[in-house]
């Protein structure tokens, strides 16, 4: 076990898959979330239901799809439906347990930016935009975000909030009028696991601030490495847990689902 050779990015996917519970309805975004969800479906959560933005409901995935709308993602689905059903009905009316999103610019309140870097009207870089990320962030009961840990991604304040985390504090979502205003938000990277401190009441303590805190380190990673690669001050918790090492079966299944390491290239 201790000799198992793996990459931190693989462990990131394996760790993320563990945050999905059996029986849950999971809205998945492109890339790493699809791989981690497929892994969860094939490991410990056979009764989970994946929903995909193009209208695919409950596919049984074998190989990692090329994209969110390609033919691979339709494999053995319960239904090939519409965007209206996935977003309007399943997501907006509140049936989705987990919104599972991929990398973007992320700030200290777990807001996500997938729209522009720089000024909105004269940007340095224009990105594709929200797609399904905004409604997933608004309406899921819980949010999982998986992304490689780089300083350029983890910034104090997003240039543009495409998908709301806690916006500007514990009551940011409530003030904005979002129904799901106190979700748990967990971010899994190749260095660590973070979550939003969103506790409303603490006995003899102050409530959470809605900001991100460090909860787990990848094996062999130090707090200093995380701090170095994060563009804002993380809330520290003690003691910090360490992510479990991957098992042989987790690794071999991951490599079977994504034999070409498609989403590890960037």
């Amino acid at each position: 076990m201790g000799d198992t050779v793996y990459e931190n990015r693989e462990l990131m996917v394996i760790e993320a898959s563990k945050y999905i519970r059996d029986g849950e309805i999971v809205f998945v975004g492109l890339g790493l979330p699809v791989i981690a969800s497929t892994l969860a479906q094939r490991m410990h959560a056979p009764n989970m239901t994946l929903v995909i933005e193009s209208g695919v409901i409950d596919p049984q995935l074998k190989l990692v799809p090329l994209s969110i709308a390609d033919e691979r993602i339709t494999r053995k689905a319960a239904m090939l439906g519409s965007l209206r059903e996935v977003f309007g009905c399943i997501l907006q009316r509140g049936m989705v347990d987990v919104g599972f999103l991929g990398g973007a610019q992320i700030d200290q309140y777990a807001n996500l930016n997938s729209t522009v870097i720089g000024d909105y009207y004269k940007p340095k870089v224009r990105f594709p935009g929200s797609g399904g990320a905004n409604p997933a962030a608004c309406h899921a009961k819980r949010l999982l975000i998986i992304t490689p840990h780089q300083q350029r991604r983890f910034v104090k304040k997003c240039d543009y909030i495409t998908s709301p985390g806690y916006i500007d504090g514990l009551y940011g979502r409530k003030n904005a009028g979002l129904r799901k205003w106190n979700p748990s938000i967990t971010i899994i990277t190749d260095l660590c696991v973070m979550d939003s401190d969103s506790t409303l009441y603490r006995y003899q303590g102050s409530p959470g601030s809605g900001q991100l805190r460090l909860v787990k380190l990848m094996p062999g990673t130090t707090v200093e490495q995380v701090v170095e690669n994060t563009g804002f001050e993380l809330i520290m918790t003690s003691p910090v847990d360490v992510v479990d090492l991957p098992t042989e079966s987790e690794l071999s299944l991951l490599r079977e689902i994504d034999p070409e390491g498609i989403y590890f290239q960037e």
Partner: protein
Amino acid sequence: MRNSKIMTVSEAVGRFIFDGASIGVGGMNVVGSPMAIAHEIVRQKKKELTLLGCNLSVAADILIGAGLVKKCECGTCNIGCRGMPSMAYSARKYYEEGKLEIEDYEHLAMVSRFLAGEMGLPFMPVMSCLGSDILRYKAPSTGKKFEIIENPWNSGEKVLLMPAATPDVAIIHVQKVDEIGNVIMEGFVAHTPEMVRASKKVIVSCEEIISSEETRNYPEMTTIPHIYVHAIVEQPCGSHPTATLRYYGCDVEHLRMYQECAEAALKEGSSGMESYEHYLQEYVLSCATFDDYLEKVGGVSRLTELRRRMREVM
């Protein structure tokens, strides 16, 4: 006997698409982009277009790259596929150079706007977007992007209203249509049913034309009845290089080549522009028909390979 609506793509585009039109674009990412219709719009140089859709993919990007689009209203401009950055590069180039407006919505908002349009309603309530910068910024030419009201039945609850979207023309590619325009879609339908019903005119290209006798034997299989449809174009492989479910898979290699040309135009100045212009010339402008294009990208043997890829995943 009802009149047939079957015509050539050049007749359909010539009759129904006009300079300044707003066009609802079907397809999502690497499936079902209406490529044959988009190529013809490029050949006929219809200008000043506004494109509406959820995930505007390569059909939209070619129209943008050909300099024909002034504005997009969409959830994303995305051709993402494995090993490729997801941004549609012509959209990125024109936006960053200030030559294209993108009105940023998201998929729920866009499909809700089409839903309002198809039901003849002025707007639709949407409960997403709140607290995000989608409500902070709007494109320069947009009048009122949204309104927030208080729920009349639940005081204190905010409700976001988004305006109906009613494109002048919808362009879609599907599996089967009969000669009078009954549309049979297989696979996921994304935003197509709402968008088509919300549009004033509809051009459908298809893999196969079937007989309306056949449709009438199994009318519950009809996705969109003929009353919404104005032009039918028979074009096998009409969504290449994107996939059509059950018929052929996505041509990843060709898509990547397209993205590389568009990326060059974005990043490499005039020599990059040449490579994109060359793509347009070689694969669109110098082709009299979409069949000519299909010959250039590998003809029957390539199609056979793409059919094999589809079988593999079904």
